């Protein structure tokens, strides 16, 4: 069994940011990533980020991933990275087990940071299991990472920022977006994204959702249905749309399983996307020296995940007696950045969620 100061589970924006801070603080770090590439979901995000310069605004997600990875190069003597490696379990004595191919591994850590991210939600409708019905993130992976179109004519379900951005990326890849469906009475994402689509001739249909899909080994067509203000189906409002792929973009939920099964106290908070770990101001869960950051603690943007990663890295290092040379400054800065990211009308949901979790900001 290998012994390390800190093990970070997840090599996305949160995990990579945490690793940098912990290494700067002087810890030996093991970073474990399930996928082949580091960077998490940044590796398929071709759009430029919003926000302020400290969170890489105006930089494309794919380039932010490269920056975060390059930031770790200086510390290669104290950092080991395991890619294509899935963590199987975490135990109260800080033992972690993982599998890489057919290779079983075991570590004991002084502290652990869980930054596993999130998974895409699904939607209930008739024949929702026909091949060709994909999550929005899956379509981004296929297109932007592997260069393969999901189909030639796609319908998008959901008009949040992901739904709108992926629709635009589909058009950039040469795919026709036949419609964006939105069950509520208003567009969920930023209007700047929505108006880009409308200018390109994509209809955004509010109060409308998918009722059923047709096809056997491949999707061929869907029926849509209109919803009234009480979210009840309007009789006689069904319409058919031919398509060879359907994209589901109805939100994300935290990948909480590792924390849940290890006995961390969890709370279900709708505004944060589902089950999240209870944590204190030090980003520590109810398991001592097990920290959590990023989407696994509540669904937000990659920008917040990076900032939370820094905070968790600071706190984990501090808990082991390794105070970062700029501990106080960095702590104040990152808390201020988080506050900025969560302010305004777009941050309402996350603010309400955090309040329910007992974490005022």
């Amino acid at each position, binding site marked *: 069994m290998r012994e390390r100061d800190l093990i970070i589970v997840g090599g996305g924006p949160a995990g990579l940011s945490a690793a940098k801070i912990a290494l700067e603080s002087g810890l030996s770090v093991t970073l474990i990533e399930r*996928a082949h590439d580091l960077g998490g979901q940044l590796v398929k995000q071709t759009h430029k980020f919003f926000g302020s310069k400290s969170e890489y605004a105006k930089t494309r997600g794919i380039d932010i991933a490269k920056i975060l990875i390059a930031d770790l190069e200086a510390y290669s003597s104290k950092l080991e990275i395991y890619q294509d490696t899935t963590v199987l379990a975490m135990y109260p004595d800080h033992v972690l087990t993982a599998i890489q191919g057919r290779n079983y591994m075991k570590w004991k850590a002084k502290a652990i940071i869980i930054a596993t991210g999130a998974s895409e939600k699904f939607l209930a409708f008739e024949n929702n*299991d026909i091949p060709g019905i994909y999550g929005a993130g*899956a379509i981004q992976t296929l297109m*932007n990472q*592997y260069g*393969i179109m999901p189909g030639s004519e796609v319908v998008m379900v959901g008009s949040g920022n992901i739904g709108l951005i992926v629709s635009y990326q589909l058009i950039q890849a*040469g795919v026709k977006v036949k419609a964006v469906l939105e069950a509520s009475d208003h567009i969920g994402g930023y209007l700047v994204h929505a108006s880009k689509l409308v200018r390109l001739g994509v209809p955004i249909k509010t109060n409308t959702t998918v009722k059923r899909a047709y096809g056997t*080994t491949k999707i061929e067509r869907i029926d849509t249905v209109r919803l009234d203000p009480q979210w009840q189906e309007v009789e006689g409002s069904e319409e058919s749309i031919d398509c060879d792929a359907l994209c589901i973009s109805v939100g994300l939920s935290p*990948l909480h399983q590792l924390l849940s099964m290890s006995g961390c106290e969890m709370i279900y908070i709708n505004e944060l996307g589902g089950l999240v770990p209870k944590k204190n101001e030090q980003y520590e869960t109810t398991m001592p020296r097990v920290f959590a950051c990023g989407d696994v603690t509540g669904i937000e943007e990659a920008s917040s995940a990076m900032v939370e990663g820094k905070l968790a890295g600071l706190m984990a290092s501090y808990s082991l007696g390794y105070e970062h040379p700029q501990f106080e400054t960095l702590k104040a800065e990152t808390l201020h950045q988080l506050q900025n990211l969560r302010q305004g009308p777009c941050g309402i949901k996350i603010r309400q969620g955090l309040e329910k979790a007992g974490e005022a900001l």
Partner: protein
Amino acid sequence: MIEYYLESGEEMRIVEHPILSFEKQNELHFTYNGKALIGYEGDTIAAALHDNGIMHYSNSIKSHRPRGFYCAIGNCGSCNMRVDGVDNIKTCMTPLKEGMVVESENAEVTIDA
């Protein structure tokens, strides 16, 4: 001699893109349920199948309904297939290799003693 080919007329590869560039890599040869197909270096198994116009990977355990991938990042298990005789391989995350034998799973998979 097996003849490998890309399913005709089904090429799904992006040729032009305003932000990304995809250079065609070396050809790889593999089979899907006995059918000889072509993929490229850097593809996952799922991506290569999709490029061949194949979205139907396996069948559900109970009702044998067709299954494709859903999340493409290893969460959902919908893309599991038998690869080189090994069951339950996440094809969305597994790189394609020369000569791979990829097969649909149509029943519950059990662990051999």
